[in-house]
């Protein structure tokens, strides 16, 4: 492949991925409402479109038509920049996550990942840490005490959980001996899923992912009963929608990342032994990936409507005194696995 072909394929892949993320996010909002309704013995949105399927589009349209209110006390450039950072971070992170095996298109072998970078995991960690800036800046630039409190909480929370997240990833990296997401997926062939080999690491990563995406039970930055709306109190119209979409896109990316790191990525266990043609192999792999991500997303939403919010001191205790030691323990466990079983 020459450079031009690579660029064309990459642009096509970017378009496909962005479209899928945007669609997934709008339907996540819809399913969030539906699942919350089911958990509370209600029906949920069912008026706009078939079973309410167009509800989120109607909501976005409404937000677009609303007045964009910027408070007088706000730092206007940063107030505008914050939702852009949030969206930028959540859409760019997906670039390194593989969603299928290599496929043959017009005689070229194309990997189903936007950018097959050899430091992919570092890239993900760097960008997700950047996500804190969006929330903190939004809180600070709004010129409102509730927003500021939300922003500060968010930075404290993200820093605390970034550590256990990083250390849990350490266990995965030890086993796969690579920072390249494609190789991490390949290292989990068959039932050698990292979630099975290192359950403690899986749980610490899962909990940290909840904290990183600001989902309940760790949604302290927005905590409606205490902080009005937290960091997005002073936002309206499409800027608010930016944060809203970013939150759901983050959820999607967190699920995709968990699937990649711990649940075998796009691999269906022992699919290569079934003797399928290349095309069918790719199709089943992509569907497997989609199902795994969808299951995790359902879990995210399900947890939100089941578990109450943590108190701030409980959150910090859990982060520093429980998650951090557990993730260290997980690294030792993985080292023992490697030494004893020669994995």
């Amino acid at each position, binding site marked *: 492949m020459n450079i031009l072909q690579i660029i064309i394929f990459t642009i096509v892949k970017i378009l496909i991925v962005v479209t899928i993320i945007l669609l997934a996010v709008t339907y996540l909002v819809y399913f969030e409402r539906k*699942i919350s309704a*089911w*958990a*509370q*013995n*209600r*029906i949920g949105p069912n008026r706009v479109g078939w079973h309410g399927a167009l509800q989120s589009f109607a909501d976005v349209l409404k937000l677009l038509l609303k007045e964009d209110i910027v408070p007088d006390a706000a730092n206007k450039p940063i107030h505008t920049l914050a939702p852009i950072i949030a969206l930028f971070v959540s859409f760019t992170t997906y670039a390194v996550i593989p969603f299928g095996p290599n496929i043959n298109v017009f005689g070229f072998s194309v990997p189903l990942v936007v950018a097959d970078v050899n430091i992919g995991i570092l890239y993900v960690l760097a960008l997700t840490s950047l996500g804190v800036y969006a929330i903190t800046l939004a809180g600070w630039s709004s010129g409102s005490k509730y927003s500021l409190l939300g922003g500060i909480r968010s930075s404290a929370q993200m820093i605390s959980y970034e550590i256990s997240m990083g250390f849990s990833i350490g266990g995965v990296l030890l086993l796969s001996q690579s920072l390249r997401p494609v190789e991490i997926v390949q290292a989990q062939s068959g039932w050698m899923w990292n979630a099975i080999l290192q359950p403690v690491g899986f*749980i610490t990563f899962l909990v940290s992912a909840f904290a990183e995406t600001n989902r309940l039970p760790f949604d302290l930055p927005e905590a409606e009963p205490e902080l009005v709306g937290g960091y997005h109190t002073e936002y309206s119209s499409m800027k608010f929608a930016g944060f809203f979409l970013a939150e759901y896109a983050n959820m999607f990316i967190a699920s995709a990342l968990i699937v990649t790191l711990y649940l075998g990525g796009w691999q269906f266990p022992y699919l290569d032994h079934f003797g399928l043609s290349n095309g069918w192999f790719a199709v089943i792999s992509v569907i497997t990936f989609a199902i795994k991500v969808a299951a995790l997303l359902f879990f995210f939403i*399900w*947890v939100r*409507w*089941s*578990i109450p919010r943590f108190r701030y001191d409980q959150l910090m205790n859990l982060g520093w005194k429980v998650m951090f030691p557990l993730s260290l323990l997980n690294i030792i466990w993985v080292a023992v696995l490697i030494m004893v079983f020669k994995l």
Partner: protein
Amino acid sequence: MALKRRKKDLTFLEKIYIPEIAKGLALTFKNMLKPKFTMQYPEEKFIPPPSYRGRPVLVMEENGLERCVACGLCSRVCPPLAIEVQAAETDREKERYPIKFEINMLRCIFCGLCEEVCPEEAIVMSKDYELAFTNRKDALYGKDKLLTPVKQLQDRINFLRNYK
């Protein structure tokens, strides 16, 4: 019932959260499969029990005349002064009747005092709760809107006779 003493310390299982979280998740999942309570309003309508206090209406006898004798007690007792009655005389056995009976539905607070005070069982609360107006004039309910055949109100009248 004996008071249950609260344990000071949580047990280890409670401290690690996971079993408790699993319990909570199981509960919400069970509820997802249960039948729904939602009433799909414009298609399905709520039919209130006879104790429901909806829009106050005037009882119309089978001969098409109102029971009301225009004594004005309801108008007197009405806390937000929503009722206006003007009496007139006729040659019928009941000598008085209201020539004008108007309830301002923007004022009405559905307290039911008019019904309680009425000596003739002439004004009762109906089951009608769909009260929306697009302007203030529409909210003035005259005799044409208030008179309701006694058959439709039998439920409420029986309820009043039993429990008032």
